[in-house]
């Protein structure tokens, strides 16, 4: 199938291909209207869309968090009923994890991996678009359960059976959870495959694995974690779905099933998941701190290996979430031991960052503030993590606010602060203007203060015995004071988020009156700073030949005979001009969007009416086949990629055309049909 020596007569693709002149290479600001965005296969635009959507869901999840905090602000809270409260905290967890922080990390991965390794795009641009659209359709699908599903899922984000069973959660919320995460999972899996191949196969000449920037490394490890973790939750979600929709007996104790099966499957996924959340932020911090210390990252290889080690060890600790669930004492002991030692590679990272700052010249831009804040705040969360790792101690801590404190410190204090720093750092590269530093600093400090006010007291509350997932507490417990503080803190965080949005708005408005930031506003170190800002559509005019790690920095600086750093080239001299013409770029396509639209329809079908599945399945099938049959290039486009090269070469173009399609069809069809 799918062989496109010449455009096929039956091709359905061309008509829909947006007529996009391939000769224009500075990326148009904001693109050319919505059709461009819907059909784009450009990893940068896809990255931006991930980022925007993620921030949207941050606000959604944040509003849910504020509702939680309002309800708990005082004893006997009356704002939400118990039922709604349960839905709100469940959807808060699910939204924040799957719809905010993962896609925000995906935004960085999509935008930056190709740039950092000197590639034109990811390995499979259309698959990349597919990932985004599938994720988005899953995200929207999940949230429509508020409207059509009789409420959100109410089983907690880890949705333990049998509480997630039909008998105990009769609304459709859990069905939406199972199917929505399934759909989002397809996106993560496809994107993991794509980005792994990109890292392994698309590097610029000389960009050996051990010259890849730490961010790319951490993102690569993250993709491997996703690659192997997603199938596990897929299994779990399928079993749950079969139980709920087709009366299977996987988790029903009445039928002799063992509810702990769900817990194992969930946490085999769930623990790697937490490193999926944190490693990208670690990567971001590892880019920012050296830049603003004017030093190379300290212990590059230790940084990389500790990241890999975290990735590996993350697979052997999952049952630390099940210390009190009644798995035997030997299992508990083994998992307790393995968990403790994960502190070691993480500690290496923390200390190497400190060593990078040691003797450096620290310039506290907003990005740097966030990065340094991340180091400190993550450490607090990591250390409370170590106290959970002691199984006997955890029997007192588990399912209390002490845990809630732990994971918000690592997730928010580590993940969110880190990625926020990344936003400030790469903003000029992505959008061509700087975010206002003063406002940025206000953002940072309000966020830091709000964050500590919110989650710091939760340590105390947890040790005082406040259980998590409770919708009210009585005055006599003595929880009132710290809860009030936490609620105030949450609103300060909200304020800081508003400051951020205002900053974006204001900076954008002011941008025309300010000098353009130029390609390399921070005097940074990796390849993405070598090209113009915003990054031109074709990324690199010429693919750079890489000769060292921190390649870009070494193109600007050398050493004199006294080993002092001297500038050897100005930024203007060393950067690419972004004016290359005739670069062959992958043509846009609507089919990824079509495939993605089919999936939620299948989802609704499974829940409401199986006929819809036929419709959705048809859409997916149509999308996949049209995709496979559409020519790889826009045949009419005026670009200098001719088909007149010697025959053999076409094989390569068809790498996207034929072979890729085959794999796409495989992966896509499979997931679609599954």
């Amino acid at each position: 199938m799918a062989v496109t020596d010449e455009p096929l007569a039956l091709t359905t693709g061309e008509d829909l291909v947006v007529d996009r002149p391939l000769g224009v290479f500075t990326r148009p600001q904001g693109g050319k209207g919505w059709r461009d965005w819907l059909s784009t296969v450009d990893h940068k635009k896809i990255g931006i869309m991930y980022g925007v959507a993620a921030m949207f869901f941050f606000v959604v999840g944040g509003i849910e968090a504020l509702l939680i905090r309002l309800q708990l602000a005082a004893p006997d809270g009356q704002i939400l009923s118990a039922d709604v409260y349960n839905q709100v905290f469940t959807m808060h967890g699910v939204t924040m994890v799957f719809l905010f922080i993962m896609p925000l990390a995906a935004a960085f991965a999509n935008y930056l991996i190709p740039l950092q390794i000197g590639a034109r795009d990811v390995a499979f641009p259309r698959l990349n678009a597919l990932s985004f659209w599938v994720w988005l359709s899953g995200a929207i699908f999940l949230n429509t359960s508020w409207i059509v599903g009789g409420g959100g899922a109410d089983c907690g984000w880890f949705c333990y059976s049998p509480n997630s069973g039909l008998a105990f959660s009769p609304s459709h919320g859990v069905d939406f959870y199972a199917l929505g995460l399934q759909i989002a999972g397809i996106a993560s899996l496809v994107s993991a495959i794509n980005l792994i191949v990109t890292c392994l196969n698309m590097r610029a000449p000389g960009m050996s694995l051990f010259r890849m920037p730490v961010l790319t490394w951490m993102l690569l490890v993250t993709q491997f974690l996703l690659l192997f973790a997603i199938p596990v939750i897929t299994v779990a979600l399928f079993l749950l779905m079969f139980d709920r929709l087709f009366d299977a007996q996987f988790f029903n104790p009445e039928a002799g099933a063992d509810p702990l099966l769900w817990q194992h499957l969930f946490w085999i996924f769930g623990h790697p998941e937490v490193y999926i959340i944190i490693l990208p932020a670690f990567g971001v911090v590892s880019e920012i701190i050296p830049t603003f210390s004017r030093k190379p990252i300290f212990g590059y290889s230790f940084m990389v290996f500790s990241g890999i080690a975290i990735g590996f060890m993350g697979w052997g600790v999952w049952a630390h979430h099940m210390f009190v669930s009644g798995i035997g004492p030997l299992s508990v002991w083994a998992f307790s031991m393995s968990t403790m030692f994960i502190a070691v590679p993480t500690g290496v990272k923390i200390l190497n960052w400190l060593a990078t700052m040691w003797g450096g010249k620290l310039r506290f831009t907003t990005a740097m503030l966030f990065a340094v804040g991340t180091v400190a705040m993550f450490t607090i969360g990591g250390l409370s993590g170590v106290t959970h790792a002691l199984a006997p101690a955890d029997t007192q801590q588990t399912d209390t606010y002490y845990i809630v404190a732990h994971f918000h410190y690592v997730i928010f204090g580590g993940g969110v602060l880190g990625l926020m720093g990344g936003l400030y750092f790469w903003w000029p590269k992505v959008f061509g203007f700087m975010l206002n530093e003063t406002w940025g600093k206000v953002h940072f400090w309000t966020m830091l203060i709000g964050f500590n006010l919110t989650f710091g007291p939760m340590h105390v509350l947890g040790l005082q015995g406040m259980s998590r997932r409770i919708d009210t507490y009585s005055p006599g417990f003595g929880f009132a004071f710290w809860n009030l503080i936490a609620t105030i803190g949450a609103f300060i965080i909200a304020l800081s988020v508003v400051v951020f949005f205002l900053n974006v708005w204001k900076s954008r408005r002011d941008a025309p009156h300010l000098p353009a930031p130029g390609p390399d506003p921070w005097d940074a170190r990796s390849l993405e700073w070598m090209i113009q800002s915003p990054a031109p559509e074709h990324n690199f005019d010429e693919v750079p030949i890489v000769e060292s790690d921190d390649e870009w920095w070494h193109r600007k600086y050398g050493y004199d005979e006294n080993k002092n750093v001297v500038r050897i080239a100005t930024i203007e001299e060393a950067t690419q001009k972004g004016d290359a013409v005739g670069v062959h770029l992958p043509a846009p396509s609507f089919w990824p969007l079509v495939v993605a639209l089919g999936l939620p329809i299948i989802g609704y079908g499974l829940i409401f009416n199986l006929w819809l599945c036929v419709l959705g399945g048809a859409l997916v099938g149509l999308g996949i086949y049209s995709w496979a049959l559409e020519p790889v290039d826009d045949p009419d486009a005026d670009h200098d990629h001719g088909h007149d090269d010697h025959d053999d070469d076409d094989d390569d173009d068809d790498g996207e055309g034929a072979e890729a399609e085959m794999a796409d069809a495989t992966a896509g069809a499979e997931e679609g049909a599954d």
Partner: protein
Amino acid sequence: MSDLFNVRRRGTGTGLLLALLLAGCASDAELDTLEPQSPVADEIWGLALPVFIIAGVVLVLVCGAVLWLSLKNRVATYEGDDEFPAQTAHNNPLELGWTIGPAILMAIIAVATSVVHFSINSVDEENAMPLTVHGETVDWEPTVVVVGQQWWWEYRYYLDGQQITTEQLADQRNLPPADIVTSGQFAIPTGQEVELIITSRDVIHSHWIPALNGKRDAVPGRFAPWKIEAYDPGVYFGQCTEFCGLSHSRMRMQTIALDPPDFQAWIDEQMAPATFDAELQAYVDAYRAGEPAAVDDEASAELRGLDVFAAQCASCHLVNGFNDMVNGEPYDGADVVSGSAPDLTHLMGRTTFAGGILNLYNEDGTVNVDDLARWIRDPNGIKENFADGLADGELPRGMPDRNLTERQIDDVIAFLITLGPDADGWMIDATEVE
């Protein structure tokens, strides 16, 4: 430290305890994890405290270093600054050092953890205590079967000297008849290691009495061993800590630790079936024989209440000596998802009800009829549940609203008050000793 955590010292003196019991604190008392009151809780705290301190030290070191480096090495701008700091990029001994250092530290913590872990998970085999059951002395290895369900705890005592095995317990819906069944509160003898066998009838719950031990999940289909012990007599509060649905937050419980003689007294009281005065007894006898007697308006409130109970409540709630025999058949199961509702035989022998969230007695020792009435009038309003307005085939979860008239409510409460020891019953008597 203790101010910070708002610790309230709990004395063991009778007066204080009594005050605490009656001061309306039953549902609101602290769940503090920092005040261990038992050997196991002590062991846990003995492990946690040093690690908290170590973590604190690491925290101060790291955050201190961050702060110090930030202040010391900061520059305002790189503008016009051509001098770069030394470009040190690695130092292998140093890096190995801070790989191995924490590893050693963790290894030490790991050893301590292992010791405590295996210690708190071991069961003392030699803990049998003599107990008089039906006038005979038996060697009781203190064991309580703990069954969670939405949203209350049931405690079952098997006393006849035989150890109950998990095989015997295989079906949580039909556990072997126990000598004592209570809900929300359970008694243990002080200074005795009591084994808990924890399970559930519906979803997963978690049993947690912070002062006495950590938690253990109640998983349907599984029986988790756990142990509990208290140094001193007293009431120890707990909370279900595994999210179990709608009223998870209102699923609480208490452990009552009693001196062994008091414990024996408690056992004696609880073992006995409910007793009725002559008027009620006649009704009961007829009911058990399958020929319920008619009750007219002129009958006593208790009798009218019993009649209401028979019609409205007896399908779920068991009262030993009354509906353990229905139409000549033994009582079988309840109409709720878990197949069970609290055993009310000795209702008045408890001090709290409805999953430990409401007080059964007022401060002055009288029965808290207001809350009882509120509960019967609108259980869902007090503790949200899924018991009313269900679709066909759906079983209720929690206590339904039986739409009783106010008079019926008063009557049924009058009857409930006859169940078990009255206001100055076992509990207060027993804890007065010391």
